[in-house]
């Protein structure tokens, strides 16, 4: 297919996607303005928009956003460093891969969010328990992808480099690392997404501050319009962060 054709297809599907979103908002508006849906259950989108403008103009969101992003940054940094280094160490031996890969994979399927009450007990209601939950959930995809990346490098590349006299350091830098990099990067992207999800989620369950906390607080106060405004705000932030991470991943993988 020609690139021109490709682009036209892409524009067409984008148009359908935008039209769909627009249709949902329109239904939402009609439902609240004319079809008598309770304003407490579902506020009018116009009200939500007004609240959203107020939230942004007043800068009221800043402390909560800072808390959530700090938790995310700390959790992601910890899970990256531990996940990549532990994954690398495991990948160095076929025996360790055989023992630990299935073990870690089965732990990954445990709903770790169930440990939140325990984490709250250990680390308190504040940032500590959120960092703990974000770290332990995002650790798994990162460590598993690191094992997969380093552990399953095509043998022919290693043999070829060895035949040309590559030292261990050269082998790591020029062969293992670039071969594993795209796979690890996918793990980092998944880890980032689940860290963000679990931190926001745990903030809505038990917390003192943060965006998730703010949303629950508004729900309990029956300020539905403002709550919806906060939800939209968080959705935009999350979409922005995920798009940024995916773009970084694509850029690093291109070639």
């Amino acid at each position, binding site marked *: 297919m020609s690139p021109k054709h490709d682009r036209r297809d892409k524009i067409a599907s984008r148009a359908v996607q935008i039209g769909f979103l627009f249709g949902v908002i329109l239904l939402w508006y009609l439902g609240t303005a004319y079809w008598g849906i309770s304003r407490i259950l579902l506020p009018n989108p116009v009200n939500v928009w007004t609240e959203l403008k107020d939230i942004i103009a007043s800068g009221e969101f800043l402390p909560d956003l800072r808390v959530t992003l700090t938790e995310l940054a700390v959790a992601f940094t910890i899970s990256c460093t531990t996940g990549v280094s532990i994954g690398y160490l495991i990948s160095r031996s076929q025996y360790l891969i055989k023992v630990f890969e299935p073990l870690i994979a089965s732990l990954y399927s445990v709903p770790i969010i169930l440990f939140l009450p325990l984490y709250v007990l250990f680390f308190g209601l504040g940032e500590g328990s959120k960092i703990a939950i974000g770290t332990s959930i995002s650790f798994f995809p990162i460590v598993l992808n690191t094992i997969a990346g380093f552990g399953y490098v095509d043998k*022919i*590349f290693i*043999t*070829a*480099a*060895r*035949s*040309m*006299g*590559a*030292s261990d350091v*050269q082998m790591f830098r*020029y*062969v293992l690392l*670039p*071969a594993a*990099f795209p796979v690890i990067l996918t793990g980092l992207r998944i880890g980032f997404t689940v860290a963000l999800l679990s931190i926001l989620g745990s903030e809505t369950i038990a917390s003192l501050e943060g965006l998730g906390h703010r949303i629950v607080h508004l729900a309990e106060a029956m300020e539905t319009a403002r709550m919806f405004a906060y939800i939209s705000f968080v959705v935009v932030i999350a979409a922005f962060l995920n798009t940024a991470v995916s773009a970084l991943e694509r850029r690093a993988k291109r*070639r």
Partner: protein
Amino acid sequence: MSADSTAIRVRDVSHQFGEPGDAQFVQALQNTSLDIVRGELMCLIGPSGCGKSTLLNMIGGLLTPTTGAVAVHDKPVRGPLPHDIAFVFQENALFPWCTIIENIKLGMVFQGVPKSEQEPRARKALEAVGLKGFMSHYPAQLSGGMRQRAALARALSLETGTLLMDEPFGALDEQTRMVLGEDLSVLLSRTEKTIVFVTHSLGEAVFLADRVAVFSARPGRIKEIIAIDEPHPRKPAFVTTEKFAKLRNSLYELLHEEIRKTVDQSAAMGAAP
């Protein structure tokens, strides 16, 4: 044959995978000896699993023989000798994350070539294989034949005395193989390299080799060595001569029986519970 004309000396090597009695035990090569003369192209041909690739890897120091010894230029081979031996593998062994020229330079980085020499040597090698216009492409952007040319360029740039080629054209279609074979013959007639070339193709063996070593079925030994007395570079027309046909036929006769044995062996293995 005087002693110092021998480039590669293989003495009584055997190789087995696993221990006798194991289910996976394979005697790949048995008590094989072979002298390869400096500057000649020696083809190894034989049925699948006869150990010809195993022998190549032992010469290159990628495998250690279970018994026996290999020496290259009187140096005993105990591991890879990147300054003496370069490989061209059957599979695509170019690094997919590097461009063609980066691939070639990386080989020289591994071998320890000074940085200032890398660029001119890489360009020279690419020119020799006719890929000068593709040096900034990634391997995935090239055809299979071009990728093997690039792999050959990488091996040439290392400027080793010996080149080991493990079915380098094995994954290519017939026409591409023929063209690459012709080009290789021209290219190699200009160098003094000693080459060991593993192939499945009778025609390729006759067209390229100075001598062809025919292997027996597993456990592999060298059954016979046939000399191909025809100067390099060989013309494409060589393929249509009676001499070519005769040599090819005699190779076929030698091999046919061994291939039968191999097929019967694997049928017997398939029938076992």
